[in-house]
């Protein structure tokens, strides 16, 4: 680090180091007597980019964290977070990629009822609201925003985030009126969508 940084940069640095929670630029500004912190944040993020500690933005909130490539050094003494069940992982992915989404929609995609407990695990972790992801979710998974969800653009482009009925209508060019055909249980028994 070359020379003494700007006072505001130092203040933002000290505040975020001391903070117990990630902070938005707005919260930082309030804490620092209304100073405009955008430039300072950018400068800090750049300063720390290659260090053992980084300044990252997740869901509009900023925090310092260790560099990912050092994980192996730090992991040994830290307790690993609880593994999510398969059901919970799927439900989380569905909420993250589709939000906002209803429980019925989650179940339509998974083709099976989802235990309330499964969603409760995600709510308790503070990663979803009913049922959209939270800033804490972005923080935990190292995402700057939902746009960083791995492959979300490809999935969207492939139409894989569209409901089956919609995709079906596009593919067949047909109106998807319910004709009383038998649907498998756990299916997308929701009323069919008009296109």
């Amino acid at each position: 680090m070359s020379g003494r940084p700007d006072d505001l940069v130092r203040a933002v640095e000290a505040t975020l180091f001391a903070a117990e929670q990630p902070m938005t630029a707005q919260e930082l500004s309030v804490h620092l007597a209304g100073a405009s912190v955008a430039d300072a944040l950018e400068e800090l993020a750049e300063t720390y980019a290659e260090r053992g500690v980084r300044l990252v933005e997740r869901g509009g909130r900023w925090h310092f964290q260790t560099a990912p490539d050092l994980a192996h050094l730090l992991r040994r003494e830290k307790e690993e977070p609880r593994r999510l069940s398969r059901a919970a992982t799927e439900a989380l992915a569905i909420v993250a990629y589709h939000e906002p989404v209803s429980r019925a929609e989650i179940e339509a995609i998974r083709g099976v009822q989802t235990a309330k407990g499964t969603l409760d695990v995600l709510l308790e972790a503070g990663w979803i609201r009913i049922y959209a992801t939270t800033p804490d979710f972005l923080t935990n998974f190292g995402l700057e925003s939902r746009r960083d969800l791995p492959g979300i653009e490809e999935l969207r482009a492939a139409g894989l985030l569209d409901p089956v009925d919609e995709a079906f209508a596009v593919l067949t060019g047909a109106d998807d009126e319910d004709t009383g055909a038998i649907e498998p249980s756990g299916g997308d028994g929701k009323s069919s969508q008009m296109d």
Partner: protein
Amino acid sequence: MEDVTAPTLFSGDEAWDGIASAQSDDAALYLELDGWEGPLDLLLELARRQKVDLRTISILDLVDQYLGYIERAEALKLEVAADYLVMAAWLAYLKSLLLLPRDPEVQPSPEELALKLQLRLQRLGAMREAGARLMGRDRIGRDVFVRGNPEGLRVDRKALWKCDIFSLIQAYGAIKLRNQPVVHMVRERAVMTLDAALTRVGKMLGIAIEWTDLRAFLPLDADPRLRKSALASSFLAALELAKQGRAEIAQDSAFGPLMLRAAPSTSSGRAV
């Protein structure tokens, strides 16, 4: 339908032991998965085993594999959850539609039903993949770590007292209302009770043979307030005496003087 978080196809650990001891090739499928997340999940895994893109899977093959899987499970006397059986029935129906000569009247066509199933499998597959990729991110507490012992930002709260002029005036009004002296003036007052009037009028009546104005029975020296009281009491006393037959009362005109005299011993009183 039963909720599915634990293995759903099998009823319990005993079933597992049964499968684990099975030596057929198919057992491998049972052994390497700890249960399915519903029939669609099983279908997805079977489709994956075709080792082709989900867009090019053979639905007919998939149907056969699914039905075969369920049959074997039943042959092993495993309890198969209802939703798997419903899916099996639907797939069997779909298969028959696909194999039978095409009936143009049937809508949607079997190909369309197959396409829908394929789309659903693609979506579930996409989300499963997405979930795995999410879990593979640099996660806090596993791959990256936040400050171990942050000082914390303390905020000392200072009260900013609020009160508006209306509340102030209202409070003052309330105090005044509350403390308005509620004065009970209890003062001594000259009165003539009914008993006193009865005794007095009764005695005086003995000497009043002629008709006498009621007011003549009142104390002469009384102040105006006592006179009012005495008048009222004496009037009531006169009525009482008349009732007892000891006095007669007469009033010649409305609001005229009320005349009183002792009753003749033989006759009863003449009431007003």
